[in-house]
Each structure stands twice: as C-alpha cells, then as structure tokens.
C-alpha cells in the first residue's frame, strides 16, 4: 500500500491516537459565524416586523371586509383585456429580446475562454453586476423622464436590467463548452469571430435560448409594476381600478394575469425541455404523456425507415441528399422544426416591437436629452433627509429582505424538498408541491404585497411577507431541481446500509445539494434587497418609499443617490455570496 502523503490540515502525529474532532479551520469557522449571524439577524427582524398582526382579529376583519368589497369578482370587457394582455406581452418579449441581443457580446467578453483580455473580462462582468443591481423600475423611471411615456422606456428598462442575469448565464454556458471544436477552427486558421460563431455558438445555443425563455417568465411577472408608472398594459388596468378602489375588477385582472404567468411558464418550460432534450423521467402526468409521445414518434420513424432501407441503398435519408449534387438536407424532420421554430421566434420578436406603438423618434431624441438629465443627477444629494434617516431606511430595507429570505428559505426547504423526485415519499406529494410552486410563481410580489397591506396596513411587514412567499416559488423550484440533480449513488449506499428515508435525505441528498442551495439562497437575498426597494412603490416601507417620493418630486439627484446606495448593498451581498460559495465548494 503506498504511504499517503500527509494532508496539510491533518494532524502530524499520524501514528498516535487521533482527534475525532475536525481541526480548526479559520475560513470555515468564520463562515459558520457569518451564517449564524445572518440567521440571527433574520430571526430578529422577523420578530421585529410584528407579523403577529397577520393572525390578529383586525387582519381578519380587514380581509373579510375586503372580500365583501371585492365581491363579486368582475372582469373588464374582452377587448380591453386583450389589448392589455397583448401590450404587456409585447413589451416583455421586446425587452427580453433586446437584452438577449445586448448580452451576447458581453457574454463573449465575460467568459474566461473567449475574452480578448482579462481587463475586458472584468469590465464585462462589472457591467453585468451593475445592471443586475439596479431595479428595472429605476431604469424605466429615468428613461420615462427623457422619452415620451409609452412602451419604449419600459422595453429598454427591462432590456437593460435583464442584461445582468442573461449575460452572466450566457457567459457561464460559454465557459462550460468543449474547447476541442474551437481549437480545431483556430488550427485551421479561423479568426476569433469565426471561432466564436462556428465553434462556440452552436454549443451554447440551446442553453442560451433556455436562459432567455427563463428571463421572459421573470420579466412577465415583473411587468405588472409598469402600471404604477403609467405604462399601458395589464398592470395599468389593474392600477387604474385599484386607484378607484374597484376591488372586484382588481381581483379579476389579477386572476387573468395569474393565468397568463402560469401559461407562459408552461409554454416556456415545454420549449426549454424540448431544446435542452431533457428526458422526462418523472412519474407525473406530463412526463408520462411526453414519454409516450416520444415512444410513438420513435415507432413511426422506425416504420418509415424500414421500407426505404429495403428498397434501395440510394434512397434519401435525413443524412443523404435525394438528388445527387444537392448540398442541403431535405426540408423535413429536425431541419423543418428548427427552421419553423426559428421563423416563428423571429416573427414574434418583430411583432413585439411593431405592436405596442413605439415612438421611434425617441431613440434618437433621447441622446440629446440624456446628458441634461444625467447632469441633473449630480451632485449626489440626500434631499431633505439626514444621513441618520437614510441609514434607518436602508437598514429597514435590508431587514425586510432578510426576514423575507428567512420565510422563503424555511418554506422552500420543506416544499422544495418534497417536490424533488428523490425525496418525495410518493408521486402525489411531489405533484402537489410542484403545482404549489408553479402557483406561487404565478402571483406577482406586488399583488401579494397589496393583499397583505389590505390585511395589516402599510409598513414593512406586508412587504416582507409578500417577498417571503413569492420567494418560495423561486427558491423552492431551484432547491427541488438541485436535489434531483445530486448523484443517486450515495443515496443508494446509505439505503443499503439500512438508513431511513430521513437519514438518507440528511446524509446523502442535502450535503450534495448544499453548495447549489447556498448559491440559490444568496441569489434570493440579492433578489429580495432589490425587490424590497421596488415594493416601496405600494407603501412596503424602506428605501423604496423614499425613492418613489423623489421620482414624484423630480429630484433626480436623490434618485441617483438612492440607486447608488442600493447598488452598494447588493454588491456587498454578492461579495459575501461569492466568498461563501468559494469556502463551501
């Protein structure tokens, strides 16, 4: 047996009695301290927010009274609904498409293996982080001040903010490719551009499309907020009826919006599944149907191929041109679906830019107005507030975010775990939990916040509750997916040793999924800091309330100051999260 080299962390006295306690590790210990501190602050702020009011008699009276005013649920006329839905869809699709187009070059610059220079790489990453940490609604508000009120500022605002997430995931996909084909093109004398287009793009295309579709879902859910800054669409209708306290109509529109979000999620996840060729392995109804369809397709393909093969060897197949000299494959099979899909996607994007009545002149005019607006933003100013007020508001925003994350984490761990195929005790539990997660994702944070405000009045508590529950839709799904992705072997090994279901979960499933879950958790904190700013718009408390006051008063210097503060907080969270992930993995 070869004598193993001593590990730096292991005790040096290899022969004598060893310690059964792990050696002291400064980084791991400080990680523990940081996590415990975060948890403690979260618990404290949860208590501080006095959620108890939610279960009090007044909340019950309020919700009963609200239900009374909201009944019967009404729906606006079909024409009004249709135009609102279409405008919202167009804005969201146009914004996501714009963002995808802008993200592609940024991703090539930001990926380790395709960046022209490390400096460029850091710059591109910086652009991504910055765009991620400025809430989309802040972009929209500033753009509205230099453009005509309409769909364009909304499209560009969503486009700019989405760059943060899309360019990061695009770059991650580039970093995971097989370098071989790129090397082959370089060896054959291809330019850098040719390497990227021919070697990289085909490898990352499925993952890029999936990323954009995922962002489309997120943007649709965020779009309801546009109504609160007077951009036309379904959110505008909702806001309009809310101002008039016409609650039956508000609920009606909320239901329409919910259905829209769920449908969009189903469509986008179906396309994503088809593109990423993920074999459905579940026992749910959808997976079973998909499997059966695939089997039928395979059977049909087999029937079709047999006579062809028997009759002659020169018969055209998918891989061989029918007419000698023809250099393109016949337009059927996968080539046909790819072509049709691509054309449909282009048509939809073109429609999304044409439909909502974009003021194209703004695209040019904005460049003359922008310098003026930017100069309005300097010097940074706190307006009438003192540093003490500002500290308090930022603190409140962070506390809301932490409390919301705690609520989200606890609920997500339970629901998300039970939604994972390898943890759920049976298919029914899994289906119910998956359905619950889709349902929660369909309800925008803003609508949840409004419901909680109705129950317990304005303040930080409804904001934290709304964010917390909305976070379950996101985190729960990510946790479920991470758990299904763990290697099954260690679970089998634990089971073979006689472990119970709970023991297998704690010893084999959870530790393997933990690094991914920590990543998702910090993503949620990050998301909650940004969203708790946004919820200020409906009186959710914190720095957001101040932000929207500043907008109302056209104090753009204050708007920039607040944005800088929010960005600083978000960046701090990102730095901590990077450190945590490095120590854990």
């Amino acid at each position, binding site marked *: 047996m070869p004598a*193993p080299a001593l590990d730096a962390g292991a005790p040096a006295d*290899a022969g004598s009695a060893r310690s059964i306690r792990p050696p002291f590790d400064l980084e791991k210990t400080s990680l523990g301290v940081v996590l415990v501190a975060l948890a403690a602050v979260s618990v404290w702020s949860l208590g501080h927010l006095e959620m108890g009011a939610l279960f009090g008699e007044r909340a019950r009276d309020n919700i009963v009274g609200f239900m009374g005013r909201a009944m019967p649920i009404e729906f606006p006329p079909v024409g009004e609904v249709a135009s609102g839905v279409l405008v919202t869809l167009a804005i969201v699709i146009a914004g996501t498409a714009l963002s995808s187009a802008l993200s592609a070059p940024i991703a090539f610059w930001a990926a380790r293996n395709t960046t022209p220079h490390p400096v460029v790489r850091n710059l591109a990453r910086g652009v991504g982080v910055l765009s991620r940490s400025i809430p989309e609604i802040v972009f929209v508000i500033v753009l509205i001040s230099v453009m005509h009120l309409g769909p364009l500022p909304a499209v560009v605002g969503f486009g700019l903010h989405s760059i943060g997430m899309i360019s990061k995931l695009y770059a991650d996909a580039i970093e995971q490719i097989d370098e071989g084909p790129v090397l082959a093109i370089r060896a054959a004398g291809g330019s850098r551009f040719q390497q990227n287009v021919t070697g990289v793009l085909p490898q990352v295309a499925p993952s890029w499309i999936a990323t954009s579709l995922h962002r489309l879902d997120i943007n649709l859910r965020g779009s309801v907020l546009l109504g609160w800054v007077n951009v036309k669409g379904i959110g505008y209708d909702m806001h309009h009826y809310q101002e008039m306290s016409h609650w039956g109509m508000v609920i009606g529109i909320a239901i329409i919006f919910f259905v829209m979000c769920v449908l969009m999620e189903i469509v986008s996840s179906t396309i994503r599944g088809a593109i990423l060729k993920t074999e459905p392995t579940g026992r749910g109804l959808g997976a079973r149907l998909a499997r059966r369809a695939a089997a039928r397709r395979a059977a049909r393909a087999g029937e079709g191929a047999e006579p062809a093969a028997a009759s002659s060897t020169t018969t055209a197949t998918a891989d061989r041109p029918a007419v000698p000299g023809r250099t393109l494959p016949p337009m059927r099979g996968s080539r046909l679906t790819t072509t049709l899909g691509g054309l449909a996607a282009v048509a939809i994007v073109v429609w999304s830019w044409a439909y909502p009545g974009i003021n194209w002149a703004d695209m040019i005019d904005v460049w003359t107005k922008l310098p003026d607006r930017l100069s309005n933003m300097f010097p940074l100013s706190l307006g009438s507030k003192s540093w003490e007020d500002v500290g308090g508001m930022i603190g409140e925003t962070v506390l809301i975010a932490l409390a919301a994350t705690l609520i989200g984490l606890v609920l997500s761990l339970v629901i998300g775990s039970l939604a994972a195929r390898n943890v759920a005790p049976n298919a029914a539990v899994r289906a119910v939990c998956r359905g619950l997660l889709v349902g929660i994702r369909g309800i925008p944070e803003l609508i949840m916040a409004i419901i909680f405000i109705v129950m317990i009045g304005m303040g930080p508590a409804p904001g934290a509750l709304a964010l917390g529950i909305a976070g379950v839709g996101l985190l729960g799904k990510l946790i479920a997916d991470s758990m299904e992705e763990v290697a099954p072997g260690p679970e*089998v090994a634990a089971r073979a040793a*006689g472990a*119970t279901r709970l*023991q297998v979960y704690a010893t084999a499933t959870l530790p393997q999924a933990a690094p991914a879950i920590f990543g998702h958790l910090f993503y949620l904190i990050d998301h909650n800091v940004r969203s708790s700013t946004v919820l200020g718009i409906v009186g959710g408390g914190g720095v957001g309330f101040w932000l929207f006051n500043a907008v109302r008063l056209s104090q753009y210097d204050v708007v920039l100051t607040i944005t800088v503060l929010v960005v600083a907080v978000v960046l701090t969270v990102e730095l901590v999260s990077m450190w945590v992930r490095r120590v*854990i993995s």
Partner: protein
Amino acid sequence: MADHGTAVIRTRELVKQFDTTTALNGVTVDITPGEVVVLLGLSGSGKSTLLRHFNGLEAATSGSVEVLGQDLSTLGGRGLRGLRRRVSMVFQQFELVGPLSVLENVCSGALGSLRGPRLGLLTYPTAVRRRALDNLERVGLGDRAFQRADTLSGGQQQRVAIARALMQDPEILLADEPVASLDPESATTVMALIREIARERELTVVCSLHQVELALEWGDRLLGLRAGELVLETSTQGLTKERVMAIYRSVATDEAQVRELRAELSAQDAAQQLVHADGTI
C-alpha cells in the same frame, strides 16, 4: 460445496424482470458462511442485479431470496432496514458524499443503528466517530479523516467506502465491481484489503468482477452468469488462468464469440468438462 443447512444466502429459481428485459432467469445459488464468492460475467449479464437482491435493493419478480435466514419477500420497511444493517455493500463508483469529510462518510455507515437524521460530523456520537477512525486506520487512511472525500484518488475512495461498510459490523459484504474503476495497482490493494478483512472478521463476501486474474486470485468459488442465467459454478482450487479464460469467454453474451470458442474448445478435453448445460455449447 454448498451446505444447505448453513447457507447465509440462498436463492431459488430467482427471476427478475425489468419492463421487457429479463435480467435474471431462474438463478439458484447457496452461499455458505465465510466463503469469498466471485460473480463473473460481462456487463449486462445480471451480476449487479443478483447482488442487489441480496440486500433487498431489488425485489424478485418470482422465486425466493433468503438472506441470514430471512425470506426477503416477507420483509417490509423496518424489517428490511434491519437486515441491511447486517449486510454491507461497496460499489463500483464508491458512492461517497463528495462535499463531506472522509470521516463523516465513514460514520454514515452506522446510520442504520442510529436514530434520526445526522447533519454534520459532530452530530454523530463520540463512540461512532472513534470507531470510524479505527476503521479508517484499518484501511490505511487515518490521516485523511478531515479531508473532503472528493479530493481522494479512486483507490483511496474505495478504501474509505470499505471503512464505511465496516461500520455496520456486517456478517456479509457485497462488493459490486469494486475495482472496475481503478488502475491495476489500486485494484490489487483493494482486493487484498477485502480478502484480509474477510478473514479477520469472518465475513461472507460476494464480489462481482470481470477480471479473470483477480477472480482466480481472490475468490474461493466462481459463479458465472450469462444473460441472467447461472452457467458456471466451480471452486477456484486448481483452476489455471487459461481454463478460466476459456470459461470466462464462454460466459460471454456475444454469440459469434461463443461459436468461435466452441470450435476451439472441442479440441480441449479439459475445458469441455467445465462447460455447463446452457444448450449452446
């Protein structure tokens, strides 16, 4: 060889059907205490499936499996877990929890005798941790206790997996292709370790392999599987590598290879008597 009175593992006409394929087709074996049995056969011949019946990871479609005197078909959740505690298993891909420390992985072998889930090394009782360290020393990796399991080489990971298996104080050790993912040197180390430990602790070992040399060197008895059927059952005593090679290849699933072999074998009297009545030879 098989003593029916004291067999620790006994199957009768064991059949296992997966959807449309028959993985095991009427396997009857008896394994007696303290012997080291090697299952030989190509991938897909049913070795892993047979092994997985011995601790109830798979349930028979028909026929019976009796382990340590218990009929597996009569055991439910708790009873099955109770049996699994007495039967350890090591896997081809080691199946350690990569992000956890080596020692915690070893401790997890004791889960069957602990109540409730465990999160983190310090949640295991001191006695378990101490025993884990002893077992880790036994496989020669005591100095790696607090390293992450996925930082070890393949051979080291398999030795950790053996230490984890020892935590159960098993009566039977099942090894599913334990060296198929290892280089020849590590393979020898691991097989020697399994053999030594089997002798020290008077374990019954059932080990699947596809390398003939290793089977011959480390096994007391060979069981040959082909397409789910038991086609060979012989002691390793006095077998030469050439004869085993012939047998091993006759246990192949490739018909052409078998036909070729048949011609070869007809010239060899010695080999012919080892060929069993599976109809093709």
